[in-house]
């Protein structure tokens, strides 16, 4: 399962910028517990610019989860609020960074604008 989140962090690090996060700034530390092991990922967002590192300091938000739950979140199968309400993840600090980060996960449902019946206006 480790592949899922590694791929995720690799992908968002390469993406570098996300327009939907231009209103968001802060550092998120993801602490992922798998058995005895703990993985740490630092995601820094500066008005939409994203960088990922394995080391960092003073996060604004810490999210702690087991590997399965975390993988479910980044693959869009589990939304952050239900995960918190169910006690699957623990959050310290500002929840808003995690909410914004949902822009980076794969959609849990809905294949895109077409599903919404979206069509651009005739001009």
């Amino acid at each position, binding site marked *: 399962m480790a592949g899922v989140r590694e791929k995720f962090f690799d992908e968002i690090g390469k993406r570098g910028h996300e327009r*939907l*996060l*231009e*209103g*968001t700034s802060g550092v998120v530390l993801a602490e992922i517990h798998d058995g005895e092991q703990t993985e740490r990922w630092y995601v820094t967002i500066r*008005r*939409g610019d994203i960088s990922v590192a394995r080391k960092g300091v003073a996060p604004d938000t810490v999210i702690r989860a087991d590997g399965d739950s975390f993988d479910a979140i980044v693959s*869009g199968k589990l*939304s952050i*609020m*239900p995960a*918190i*309400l*169910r*006690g*699957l993840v*623990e*959050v310290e600090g*500002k*929840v*808003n960074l995690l*909410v*914004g980060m*949902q*822009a980076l*996960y794969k*959609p*849990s*449902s*809905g*294949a*895109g*604008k077409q*599903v*919404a*019946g*979206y*069509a*651009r*206006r*005739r001009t």
Partner: protein
Amino acid sequence: MNDEVKILDGNTFVVSDNSGDIEASLTDPTGLFSYDTRFLSKWLLTVDGQKLNPLSVDDLQYFETRFFLVPGTGTVYVDAKLSVIRQRAVGGGFHEELTILNHDDQPVDLEVRIEADSDFADLFEVKDALAKKGEYYRRVDEGRLVIGYRRETYYRETWITSTTHGSLDEHGLAFSVHIEPHGQWTTDLHVVTAHLGAGVRVEKPKYGRNAKVARPNMERSLEKWLAEAPRLECDWDPLKRTYQRSLVDLAALRFSPPVLAGHSLPAAGLPWFMTMFGRDSIFTSLQALPFTPELAASTLLALGIWQGVRVDDFRDEDPGRILHEMRYGELTAFEERPHSPYYGCADATMLYVVLLDEYERWTGDTKLVRALEAQARGALAWIDDYADLQGNGYVSYKRRNEKTGLENQCWKDSWDSISYHDGRLPGFPRATCELQGYAYDAKMRGARLARLVWKDPAYADQLEREAADLKRRFNRDFWVADGEYFALALDADGAQVDAMSSNMGHLLWSGIVEKSKAKAVARHLMGPRMYSGWGVRTLARGEGRFNPIGYHVGTIWPFDNSFIAWGLRDYGFKEEAARIAAGILDAAQFFDGRLPEAFGGYPREQTKYPVQYPTACSPQAWSTGAPLLILRTMLGLEPIQEHLIVDPVLPQGIGHLELLDIPGRWGRVDAFGRGTVDVDRVGRSRPQLGVVPPPAAKPAGRSRGRRAESGR
């Protein structure tokens, strides 16, 4: 239940009977609730095995109440040697001071018992009577009764302790009490809503006897709230009461979601809607802007944090969309309901930009406008990228979550609210007219902010061009030419849904109505089909689905009317706005200053009093805000750059009106006005605005604020 007593603190509230007891069934909405979960479904006090009877209930504050009780069977004759006082304050659960007084000259020995239990029902389960899927547990540990519920990793607990030594068992607490002649016995009970989820943990109730500081804090907070709001002086006393009631209710409706770290926004209604609602929180913030502008700032921040970022059919979420409703209960946690949050609302996203602009106009807080630039741009982009479902240039809605999503995603969200003149219901998508007005207004206001704060004149020009184009098309496509009014909606084929409705009033407020059509719209709104004498009906008499007590098809909504009056004023129909103000304020008098969500659309001369529509929530936030917006409208308060313009047009019976210390970018300013508009269409019955004898000839409406300016 008629005798229910409610106290609350944010989204924690207690609903009990008038003895203070709770004996809920799954469908019975009593109990201690927090974060949309019931933490106590039973809280039953007995003395020597007998329940107690209420002598009186003192509502001390909205968060605190006191029950005076006596033992006995509830006959009319009371000759008790004992009295029992339960004083209860809510917050982090609740704290209850239980005192028993012995009035006899003999000592007494009593068995006092409190039965406690919880079903941990989700609010949605209470509404729909659903069965639980997890398991319950209870234990006594370290002098504490723990009642819990677990489903997989989800768990919620209630902790119960007392300050006096008693015996605890898994079903409650018992005390063997000896009281000397004319003596008393007392204990403090703590009920803690531990493990709330949402990242919130509680260790003890907010206040109790041992935390003297906390309770005065809450009172001080209310006093401070009232002291900071503008002061109102008026010759017509009912308005003073209504104003005071609105401010206190607005204080009670403040809710601090976990993402706001202590700041509060207006929740939608007490007690069942004590949560963030996009539409309700925005409308209430708009109404309250001249009085408590900080609510708008919190609303904008919280809704901005939760702005949609992905396409998610279950939650009807799109990038840029502003949420409809947030919930924290078990069904939401397990995604059996989509409220985490749910985004199925077609107007809040546009109203978000409207509120941001209006907030800046009043406060001059460009810092917040800059901080929320990305959110505002996201909201504006949503209008064209996601809301134009039919590709015809109009905002429309159709839910993608067909199981638990909302069918009608406009403010009239009941199933039959959108209909043709003949009563048929249109298919989906539906493009209701007021959505187009809000879209127009959002673009115009977004353009102002782009030019002024974001320094992006090209974007401003683009938004204005789009707005002008929308206005032109709208006035062509929605105008019912032979009736001279705007259709309620366009249907999936782009044909007019031609019922006449109050939505037209919101069109005036948005500014989308061409000047040449405004007079006809105002005439309809104030005509006998729409205007009842108390207010404008949601649907005109003569429409196929009209029903004077139909939720959105004939009742009168004070909130709706407050925006209609604002719209009428904006188009220069000042006397018509004053007439609506008079009707709604007269109605408020019948409800002790607390306007209900809606009341019947019967003609005023027929019923003489406004017939309340039965709803579960009172106060309702946007009804609470209605008198505030009406005050603004009557006084003609309008921020123009650094100044507040005052241009009062008031109903005659109001006499002299002063609103002092109105906060804004000008500091504090006073506004004065005098009633001059004769709105008497009622006949004679009671001292209402319409029928107060006209005062001796006085000068017309005027203003003389410290820096307030008269006229435009």
